């Protein structure tokens, strides 16, 4: 029949056309799926590095050096953070540091961001940017077709900002306070009455330090003693703000 012979090959042609569309869908499913994963992984890595680094800052240039090393440290060791479904090591990590705003101590002062500040005093915030180039499997062909350029990688970056932020309005029922008070009552160690000797004994890191509304207190058995800024969870006293007589209590938080 005439009509029949005219329709020969119809399915084949349609399949070929459909394959183009399907390749696009495959590109969405595979490449975009991977991009989302890599973006999440980089975000986690940048946040973790920024938090780790911010714990090291104490207003000295030695603190900046420690923070820079801390940023690098998250990509190595037993708990190394990786990308591309945890298979590759991130090599492009950049850290910069900032002071806090005088008016709003929990926000970084954007005019002070510097990779290596000459005067490290009051530097409390760390920004870590992680960058990778993700090889594309399907999308590259489409990108080349639409832009005329042969691009087979996608640049993906994530930035995390953390800093020592002031604990100002602790709720009246601060959940940790009771437990810490119990701990203090039971404590038989009476030998470290000030921050310096406490650190010297290698016992920093928040045991008998409790933040209370209105200031920072180093708690010793039988009473409290105010001692200037400290950072919860840090072995270092922290950078403080440039406000005179600062005895703030700080906790490292993600701010962006």
């Amino acid at each position, binding site marked *: 029949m005439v009509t029949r012979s005219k329709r020969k090959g119809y399915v084949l042609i349609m399949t070929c056309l459909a394959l183009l569309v399907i390749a696009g869908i495959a590109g969405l499913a595979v490449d975009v799926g991977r991009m989302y994963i890599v973006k999440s992984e980089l975000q986690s890595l940048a946040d973790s590095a920024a938090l780790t680094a911010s714990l090291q800052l104490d207003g000295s240039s030695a603190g900046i050096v420690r923070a820079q090393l801390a940023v690098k440290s998250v990509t190595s060791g037993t708990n190394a953070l990786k990308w591309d479904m945890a298979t590759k090591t991130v090599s492009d990590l950049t850290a910069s540091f900032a002071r806090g705003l005088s008016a709003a101590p929990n926000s970084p002062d954007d005019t002070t961001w510097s990779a290596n500040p000459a005067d490290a005093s009051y530097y409390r915030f760390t920004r870590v940017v992680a960058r990778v180039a993700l090889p594309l499997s399907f999308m590259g062909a489409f990108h080349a077709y639409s832009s005329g350029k042969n691009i087979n990688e996608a640049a993906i970056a994530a930035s995390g900002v953390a800093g020592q932020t002031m604990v100002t309005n602790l709720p009246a029922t601060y959940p940790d306070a009771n437990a810490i008070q119990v701990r203090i009552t039971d404590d038989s160690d009476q030998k470290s009455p000030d921050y310096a000797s406490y650190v010297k004994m290698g016992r920093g890191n928040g045991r008998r330090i*409790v933040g209370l509304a209105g200031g920072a207190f180093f708690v010793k058995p039988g009473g409290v003693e105010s001692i200037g800024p400290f950072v919860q969870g840090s072995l270092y006293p922290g950078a403080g703000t440039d406000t005179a007589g600062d005895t703030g209590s700080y906790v490292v938080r993600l701010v962006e």
Partner: protein
Amino acid sequence: MIEFALSATLLAGFFTGIFQYGYAFYAYNVLENAVRSGARYASLKPYDSHSAVPSEAFQLAVQNIVVYGDPDPPRNAAPVLGGLTRSNVKLTVTGGPAGGSLVAPASMTVSISRFRVNSIFSVLTLDGRPSLTFPYTGVLTPPRGS
């Protein structure tokens, strides 16, 4: 007819592949975000143990955050990803109190262990990834009397 048979095979293969990869990537992304919230929660929760082994309540709360997004989920809570249970969530504490000395943990690592992503034709087993470590920034609050 033969053309249709050939192309149908091809297309079916394509669609299966798209589904498999799409679902596996989706699952991984969900787990990545779940592990992230678990690690962040663990890094801030007061640490109530005398050793690097966390207390049962601490571990349970972290696992619940990862699986249900809630430290104390309601009885009928649905996991963030089908098939995910608390036993798939591993919490590792680095540093921490030991031998009577009271030092707060250095970091908290949350990872997914032995979780199988079933996508019809193949199974992807995730063991040890996704994994995330955050520095510990909470306070050490060991229980009274020790």
